[in-house]
C-alpha cells in the first residue's frame, strides 16, 4: 500500500517543523490588525460625516461651495407664475421643454390643456400631444360660454407628497426650492408618480426612473431662465425668485389675487396662477 504524502499545511503551523511554525497564527494576527485598522478608519470617517450631518441639521447654512461656479442656493427661492388669461395655447413652452430636456415622446414635463366650458358647467378638456403641436379648432357639441388654456407643470411644492414617500430617498427638494429626482438612486417604483396630485411625474420609458420638471435647474443655476418661460411669446409664464429684492413675480404674488392648485391638499405649491377659475383643476 503506497503511502500518501501529507503536506505540512494540512496540520497547520503547529506540527510542520521550524520553517512554518506559527505561520497561520502570524497570518491571522496580521490579518486581524489590518482588518481592525480599516474598520477603525471607516468608523472614524463615518463619525466625522455624522458630526457634519449634525451641524448641517442646525439653522445655519452648510458648506457654501456645493456649486463650483459660485452659485449660492441659499440666496434663491424660486417661484413660478402662470397667467391663464394670457395663454394663447401655442405650445411653444411644451416644444421648448421637450427639446431642452430631451423629454421622451408622448411624455411631458409641462403641458397645456384646453378647457371649454358650457353654461351648465359641462367642461370639455383636451390636450392632444400635450399641446406640443398646438390646438386644432374642433366641435364640442356644447354651447361654450367660457374657454381657456391651462398650462401645467410641477408645482415644486414646499410640502411634497412625492418626496415624502420615496422609499430610496431619490426625490428631494433643494435649498432653493426645486423638487428633483436623483436618477442614480431611483428604482422606478412609481410611488411618486401616483402620489403627485398634479400629475407632473412620469416613469421615463428608457431609464425606467421617475422624471419630472427640474425647473431647468441646469439653466436657472447659471442665471438663465427656464426654457418654457423663454419660449412663451405672451409672458403667460414667469419665473420668479422670492429672495430677490424687487422681483416681478414676488411683487405680483404680494399684490394680486394669485391662486394655487388644490390648496386643500396642503402641499403648499410654489407655482401660482392668475385667472384661475373653478373648472380648472
Amino acid at each position, binding site marked *: 500500500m503506497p503511502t500518501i504524502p501529507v503536506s505540512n499545511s494540512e496540520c497547520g503551523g503547529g506540527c510542520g517543523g521550524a520553517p512554518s511554525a506559527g505561520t497561520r497564527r502570524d497570518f491571522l494576527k496580521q490579518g486581524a490588525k489590518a482588518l481592525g485598522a480599516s474598520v477603525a478608519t471607516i468608523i472614524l470617517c463615518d463619525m466625522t460625516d455624522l458630526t457634519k450631518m449634525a451641524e448641517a441639521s442646525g439653522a445655519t447654512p452648510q458648506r457654501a461651495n456645493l456649486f463650483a461656479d459660485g452659485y449660492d442656493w441659499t440666496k434663491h427661492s424660486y417661484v413660478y407664475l402662470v397667467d391663464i388669461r394670457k395663454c394663447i395655447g*401655442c405650445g411653444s413652452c411644451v416644444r421648448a421643454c421637450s427639446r431642452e430636456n430631451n423629454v421622451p415622446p408622448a411624455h411631458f414635463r409641462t403641458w397645456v390643456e384646453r378647457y371649454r366650458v358650457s353654461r351648465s358647467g359641462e367642461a370639455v378638456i383636451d390636450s392632444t400631444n400635450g399641446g406640443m403641436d398646438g390646438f386644432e379648432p374642433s366641435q364640442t357639441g356644447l354651447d361654450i360660454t367660457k374657454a381657456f388654456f391651462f398650462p401645467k407643470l410641477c408645482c415644486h411644492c414646499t410640502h411634497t407628497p412625492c418626496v415624502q414617500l420615496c422609499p430610496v430617498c431619490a426625490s428631494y427638494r433643494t435649498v432653493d426650492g426645486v423638487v428633483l429626482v436623483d436618477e442614480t438612486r431611483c428604482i422606478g417604483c412609481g410611488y411618486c408618480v401616483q402620489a403627485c396630485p398634479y400629475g407632473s411625474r412620469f416613469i421615463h420609458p428608457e431609464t425606467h426612473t421617475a422624471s419630472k420638471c427640474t425647473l431647468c435647474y441646469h439653466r436657472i443655476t447659471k442665471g438663465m431662465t427656464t426654457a418654457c418661460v423663454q419660449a412663451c411669446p405672451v409672458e403667460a409664464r414667469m419665473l420668479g425668485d422670492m429672495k430677490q429684492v424687487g422681483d416681478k413675480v414676488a411683487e405680483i404674488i404680494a399684490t394680486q389675487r394669485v391662486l394655487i392648485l388644490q390648496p386643500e391638499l396642503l402641499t403648499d405649491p410654489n407655482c401660482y396662477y392668475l385667472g384661475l377659475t373653478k373648472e380648472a383643476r
Partner: protein
Amino acid sequence: MEHAKHIIRAVLLLVIAATVFVLARHFAIPASFGEYGPYRSASVTEHAAREPMHGEADSCAGCHADEVDFKAEGKHAKLSCESCHAQLSVHVHNDQKVGDMPIPKPIEACGWCHEKLRARPEGFPQIVLADHVAENGETMTDSVCLECHNAHNPSE
C-alpha cells in the same frame, strides 16, 4: 471572576454587531448622502452641470444682429427665435456652427399662435387660416403666409 468569560462573550458580540452595523452603513450609504438632507447632494450638482440646449435671449444677435433688430421692431419682438426654429444647440456649439437651423413650415408655425380658437384670449390676432388665404386670393400651400407677411416682422 468565575463568570468573566460570559461577560467577555457578550461584550465581544456587541462589538461585532456594532462593527457589522457600521460597516454595512458605510457601504450602503452613497457618498455625499445626507450632507444637506436625506438625499445625495452630488445629484444637485449633476443636475446643475447639464449643458443648456436653448441659448439666452440675446444669443442669436451675436451673428444675426440685423434679423434680431428687424424682429425687435415688429409685433414678434417678444417671440423667441428658438420658438419657431429650434434650440440653439443644433446650430451652434462652442461658438462653432454645427448645423443648419431648421425653418418650420410657415402654415404650421403661424397656425400654432394665429389659427382662430375659442380658447385664445380675445384681442390676440387670430384668423381662420383657410378663410384668410381664400379671402386674399391665394392658394393654400405650406408657405402661403410668406406671400404677404414677413415671419420676423409680420406687419412688413
